[in-house]
């Protein structure tokens, strides 16, 4: 009655089934999420740290970065990266012409999503560091640690533990936001879902399958972070119950 047989049917180009087509989309979604997560974590942590130092222009630069990426809709950012920025950056324009189109779309999507998410991560890292008692930083300096050492050994180990819950939701947001890469034609999960809907008119079957896949990915990320939170809990601190 549900007519799930559609997923076993071949796509019009005949070399794969709809189920496999959706899974190949999922593969792109996962690759995009993983790569842009790395970009976002590295950049976001760096910016978050810089925004808590007392160098005024560095803080201003970090604040400007966050405001810039937070106040423009993600869809518009995708358009900017794909249609506008290559016009002003000749090497990018050359890549657009010479590179395999799919790889170029993936590359731009990673950059776009990575930078977009880095602003959010920076905000979390900053608030994590600021939530620590001021005495921790002072204690670090009093022990003769340099500023970099204080961050590395005193502040960040606690700050990152504190922000695991908001990092969890940011990471789950990243999965959801990755669907917007459809707008520049990257063949990720939502792209494949629409394609299946358009070609078979089985919209509800296609959307249903995509919903299940997205929920599964979100749930998996949620579980990984829950495990991480338990594994890194400091005894006698922060919900470290044991």
């Amino acid at each position, binding site marked *: 009655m549900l007519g799930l047989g559609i997923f076993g049917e071949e796509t019009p180009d005949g070399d794969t089934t709809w189920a496999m087509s959706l899974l190949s989309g999922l593969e792109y979604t996962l690759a995009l999420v993983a790569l842009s997560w790395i970009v976002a974590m590295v950049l976001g942590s760096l910016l978050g740290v810089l925004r808590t130092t007392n160098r005024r222009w560095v803080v201003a630069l970090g604040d400007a970065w966050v405001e810039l990426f937070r106040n423009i*809709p993600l869809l*518009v950012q995708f*358009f900017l990266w794909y249609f506008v920025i290559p*016009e002003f950056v000749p090497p990018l324009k050359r890549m657009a012409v010479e590179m395999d189109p799919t790889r170029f779309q993936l590359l731009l999507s990673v950059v776009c999503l990575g930078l977009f998410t880095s602003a959010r991560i920076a905000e979390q890292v900053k608030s994590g560091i600021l939530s620590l008692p001021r005495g921790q930083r002072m204690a670090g300096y009093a022990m003769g640690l340099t500023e970099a050492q204080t961050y590395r050994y005193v502040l960040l180990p606690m700050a990152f533990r504190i922000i695991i819950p908001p990092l969890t939701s940011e990471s789950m947001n990243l999965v959801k*936001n990755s*669907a917007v890469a459809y707008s520049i034609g990257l063949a990720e999960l939502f792209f494949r*879902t*629409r394609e299946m809907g358009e070609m078979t008119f089985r*919209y509800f079957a296609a*959307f249903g399958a995509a919903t299940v896949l997205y929920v599964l990915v979100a749930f998996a990320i949620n579980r990984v972070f829950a495990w991480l939170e338990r594994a890194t809990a400091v005894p006698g601190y922060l919900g470290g119950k044991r």
Partner: protein
Amino acid sequence: MEGFDWASVSASLPFLMKGLSYTVQLTVVAAIGGTLWGILLALARLSGIAPLAWAAAAYVNLMRSVPLLLVIFWFYFLVPVMLQWVSGAAYPPKIGPDRSAYVTFILFEGAYFCEIVRAGIQSIPKGQLGAAYAIGLNYAQAMRLIILPQALRNMLPVLLTQTIVLFQDVSLVALLNVTDLVGAAVKIAQRDSRLVEMYTLVAVVYFVLSYALSLGVKALNRRIAIIR
């Protein structure tokens, strides 16, 4: 690149303004409708009736783990079916994506507003509810007169911040060919081959408006903080 063509930009301003007014309208309606729906969901989640609490939690979690883009397309196809079911008509009514978007955003944002409202309600000390019962109010009265006014005030800054997010999220309807601000820009960009001008303009407009709104929320936040 032969430089910015401002003539094509200024000629298209009326159309862009029409798009912007749709964006604002959808944002306002969805924010108000979403807040009301969110309050109902939050009350359901916090209610003692287990099946109700469970259903609300399932709804909220489902909405929050699926991409908005997918939800927009879901409802684009679902809303006509839902309306047919409600009205008992023989055929699903034809409604465009511009109108189904209202339903989509109220139902979708309701899930996010629900979590904000729930946190707001849970931030009120338990004694308040006890005191309300002690002076003879029933549950509905206690919620309406005692708990919700305080909770809503506590969470106003977060609600407004979420509304700014919503204002930006509305742009996704452009992918269903709706003429919101971004949709209008896409249409002109493709008609006149002025992608650079149009997308830059939209980015600037969105940035200015969102940034101004977020400064407003910050100012409000400070005022509320002083009063309390």
